[in-house]
């Protein structure tokens, strides 16, 4: 299987651990991942204004780049990029007049976008194209005894037109952890927002959210929280420093990308995990569980 891939900017720097582990896992699962050679930032947030078609152009251009390769599917790992690309695509497909105007903005593109590219999240590829059975066969180091709280945040499950699973009780991450040999815990806060971009000028709000979300995970006996978004990762991991200052009874907890758990179970070495990018160290937990 061969898939076009959109990394997004954060996976190229702060979230290198997410990208390296994803690419390793895909390779182990026999998926050839081809990065678009001229991708641009998707704009991060989906533009909600009815008249603001200009800001839909950035995500749509990446779909044109996919078409240029002769491909009709574009995979991304960053939940936020996924959400923005998928919703822009939905708007283009659902409204011919909007699509025509978007194409008018892109006068320098040799061909118009026709709404014919599907946007896929890595987790959808894992569940629907590779399949859990095929993954189970390739697990060489089961995540035995690792209790994982699966955190979806917002962007994988809301709104409906971008959701990859049930909005209130998604299961795909839990199913994946189970296949990898780990133990998913019941998690009340799996779709509770972490505060998103408030982290820039109101980190104390994000610290409250981190306290609640990681506290709920801890109460269920989780060893770690698995995420799929570099912003969730930054807020839940790096903002633990602020959280400790505000909430004296806070217990720190390592945060892990679901792709890192895949890489470990599929036999990856420490180099694809990029543990140096974590704030609360993940290494000691993995060593303690015999996974490193």
């Amino acid at each position, binding site marked *: 299987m061969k898939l076009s891939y959109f990394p997004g*900017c954060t996976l190229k*720097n702060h979230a290198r651990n997410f990208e390296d582990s994803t690419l390793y896992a895909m390779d182990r699962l026999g998926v050839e991942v081809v990065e678009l050679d001229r991708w641009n930032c998707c704009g991060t947030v*989906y533009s909600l204004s009815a008249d603001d078609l200009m800001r839909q152009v950035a995500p749509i251009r990446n779909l044109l780049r996919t078409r240029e390769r002769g491909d009709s599917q574009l995979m991304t790992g960053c939940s936020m990029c996924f959400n923005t690309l998928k919703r822009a695509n939905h708007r283009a497909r659902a409204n011919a007049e909007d699509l025509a105007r978007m194409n008018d903005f892109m006068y320098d593109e040799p061909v118009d976008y026709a709404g014919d590219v599907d946007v896929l999240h890595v987790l959808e590829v894992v569940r629907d194209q590779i399949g859990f059975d095929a993954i189970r066969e390739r697990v060489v180091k089961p995540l035995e005894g690792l209790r994982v709280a699966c955190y979806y945040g917002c962007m994988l499950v*809301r709104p409906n037109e971008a959701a990859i699973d049930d909005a209130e009780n998604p299961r795909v991450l839990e199913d994946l952890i189970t296949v990898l040999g780990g133990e998913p815990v019941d998690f009340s806060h799996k779709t509770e927002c972490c505060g*998103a*971009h408030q982290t820039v*000028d109101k980190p104390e*709000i994000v610290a409250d*959210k981190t306290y609640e979300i990681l506290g709920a995970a801890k109460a269920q006996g989780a060893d770690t929280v698995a995420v799929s978004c570099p912003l969730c990762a*930054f807020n839940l991991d790096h903002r633990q420093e602020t959280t400790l200052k505000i909430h004296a009874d806070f217990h720190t907890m390592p945060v892990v990308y679901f792709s890192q758990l895949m890489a470990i179970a599929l036999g990856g070495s420490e180099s694809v995990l990029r543990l140096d990018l974590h704030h609360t160290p993940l290494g000691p937990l993995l060593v303690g569980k015999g996974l490193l």
Partner: protein
Amino acid sequence: MTVFVSRDKINSGFTAKVQRLADQNLMACYQCGKCSAGCPMAAYMDIPPNQMIRLAQLGMEDELLSCEAIWLCVSCMTCNMRCPKGVRIAELIESMRQIKLRTRQDHLQVENISEADLRAIPPIALIGSMRKFTS
């Protein structure tokens, strides 16, 4: 909060503008409060989401454009998914932010972000914040 309802405010055009920018019908809201009940930011807001919608129905432009709440909403879409009337609250709040941003009244002063923060905070957060808070 005490507000005074007047025909002038209701007919001022603010309500229509918010509806147009969001492509939503404000009048569909029947004030059940479900949007506020599940909002992760409601505890920090000076005006909770359902009240923002009510004030917008009544054309309360000054109250809404000067409140903190419109900037606290993170477009997490929880309210949209749960509203029994199908009102897209997140789009309505975005349109109120847009009315400020389109007159160059930015909420975030980028020059005030420290060098250290610019290095430490990932682009996904910085760009998201600039997209939401600057013109």
